[in-house]
C-alpha cells in the first residue's frame, strides 16, 4: 500500500512535469486559424487523446442544400410560404430551441439562395446571425465567410458553396469548443427542414426523384437519433421519441440492393459507383412521413419557450 502510494506520487510528479514541459513547449507555437499556414504542424500527433473524440463512430447527416438542389432541378417553383419566417427568431428562448431553429434557418438560407431570391437571402442571413448571437456561438460563424456570403448574395453558385463552408466551420468550431450538442441540434433542424422541402415539393409536383429522396432517409434518420441520444439532453426526450416513431414508418420501406463492381479512372481520380438500389414506398407511407415531419417541425418552429 505504502509502496503503491509512493509510486503514485512519483508517477504524478513525473507525468505532471512531463506534461507541463510539453505544454510549455507547445505554448510557443502560434495557434493556426482557419485558412492560415500550417507549416508548424507536426507530421503526426504524438499528443495522446485527452478530451477529443477517440476513434469510434461518427455521424453523417445529409446536407439540406443537396435536397434543395434536387427540388429546384425537379422543376418545382419557389414557394416562400413553406419557409420558417426569419422574423420569428426572437421567439426562440431556450438553447435547445435556438439550436434547432438555427439549423432550420440555415436550410432556408440554402433554399432561397438556390432560387436566387436575394432579398429573402438577406433576411435569412440576418436571422442566422441573430440566432447565433443569442446562442452565444456567433464566433462559430466565421466573420470572413459571413462577409463573403453577404458580398455574394446575388451569386447563386457562390452562395451555395459559402453557406456549406459556413456550416462546416460552425460544426468544427462547436465540436472543438465542447458544444457538440448544439452542432447536433443544428444538423437536426436542417434535416427536418430539408424533409419539409421534399414533402412540400412532392405535394406541389409529385415526381419519382423527390419521392425516392424522401424514402432514402432511413440511415440519416437512424444517425440523427443516435447523435441526439448521445448527448442525454433532457429537452430532447420528446424529439427523440418523435423521431423514433418516424423511424418505425421507415422500417416498412423496402429496398433491394444490387452490387455491381465499381470502375475507376485513376487519371481523373474518379471512381464510378455502379451499384443500384430499388426502393418501394407506398402513398400511405409517404402520408405518414409527411404528417410526422409536419408535426415535429411545428413543435420546433412554434415553440413558446
Amino acid at each position: 500500500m505504502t509502496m503503491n502510494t509512493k509510486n503514485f506520487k512519483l508517477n504524478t510528479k513525473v507525468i505532471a512535469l512531463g506534461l507541463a514541459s510539453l505544454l510549455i513547449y507547445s505554448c510557443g507555437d502560434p495557434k493556426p486559424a482557419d485558412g492560415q499556414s500550417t507549416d508548424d504542424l507536426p507530421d503526426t500527433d504524438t499528443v495522446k487523446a485527452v478530451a477529443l473524440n477517440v476513434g469510434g463512430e461518427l455521424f453523417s447527416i445529409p446536407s439540406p442544400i443537396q435536397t434543395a438542389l434536387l427540388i429546384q432541378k425537379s422543376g418545382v417553383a419557389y414557394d416562400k410560404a413553406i419557409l420558417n419566417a426569419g422574423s420569428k427568431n426572437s421567439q426562440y428562448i431556450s438553447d435547445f430551441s435556438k439550436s434547432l431553429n438555427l439549423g432550420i434557418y440555415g436550410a432556408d438560407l440554402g433554399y432561397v439562395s438556390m432560387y436566387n431570391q436575394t432579398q429573402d437571402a438577406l433576411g435569412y442571413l440576418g436571422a442566422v446571425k441573430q440566432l447565433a448571437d443569442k446562442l452565444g456561438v456567433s464566433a462559430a460563424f466565421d466573420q470572413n465567410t459571413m462577409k463573403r456570403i453577404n458580398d455574394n448574395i446575388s451569386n447563386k453558385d457562390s452562395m451555395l458553396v459559402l453557406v456549406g463552408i459556413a456550416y462546416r466551420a460552425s460544426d468544427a468550431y462547436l465540436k472543438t469548443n465542447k458544444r457538440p450538442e448544439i452542432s447536433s441540434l443544428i444538423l437536426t433542424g436542417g434535416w427536418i427542414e430539408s424533409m419539409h422541402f421534399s414533402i412540400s415539393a412532392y405535394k406541389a409536383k409529385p415526381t419519382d426523384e423527390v419521392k425516392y429522396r424522401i424514402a432514402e432517409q432511413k440511415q440519416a434518420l437512424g444517425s440523427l437519433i443516435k447523435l441526439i441520444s448521445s448527448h442525454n439532453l433532457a429537452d430532447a426526450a420528446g424529439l427523440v421519441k418523435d423521431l423514433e416513431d418516424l423511424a418505425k414508418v421507415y422500417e416498412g420501406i423496402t429496398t433491394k440492393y444490387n452490387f455491381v463492381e465499381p470502375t475507376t479512372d485513376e487519371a481523373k481520380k474518379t471512381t464510378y459507383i455502379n451499384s443500384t438500389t430499388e426502393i418501394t414506398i407506398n402513398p400511405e407511407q409517404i402520408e405518414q412521413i409527411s404528417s410526422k415531419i409536419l408535426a415535429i417541425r411545428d413543435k420546433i418552429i412554434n415553440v413558446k419557450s
Partner: protein
Amino acid sequence: MKTNLYKCLLILSIVGLSSTAKAQCDSIASLCSKHIIAKFISDGQSYRSLLLNSEENAEFHTTFFGETTYRLAACSGKTDGNLIFNIYDQDRHLLFTNKNYANAPYWDFKVKSTLECTIEAQLDPNKNAGSGCAVILIGFKQK
C-alpha cells in the same frame, strides 16, 4: 502540499494538451478543406477523430445519393497521404480504398444510384509512428 501542486500541474497540463490536440485537428481540417474545391458544396460537417494508433479506425455511415458526384478528402498531419480511407457498401463490399492510389488525399465518386455505405479511416502504419488526428470532409455536386 507538494502533491497538490503536482496534481494541479497535471490537471492544467491535461487541459492545455487537450487544447493543443484540438488546435492541431483544426489546422488539419483547414489544410484538408483546400481539397474541397469551389465546384463542390460542403455537406456542412467536419468529421474528425483522434486515433491513438494505426490499428484504430474512425468510422461513419453515410448515404450517397444517386446522380451525384461526391468528393472525399481525408487528412492527418501536415502532409498529404498519411490517412488510409476505405468505403464499403451495406454488404461490406469494398468499393474503394485510397491505399491502392498512394493514399490519395482526395477522390471523386460518381454515384449512379443511392446507396448506404460505411467510411472507415485509419493512420497509415508506414507513415505514422504514434497517434494522429483524422479529418474527413465531404463535398458534392449534381451530375
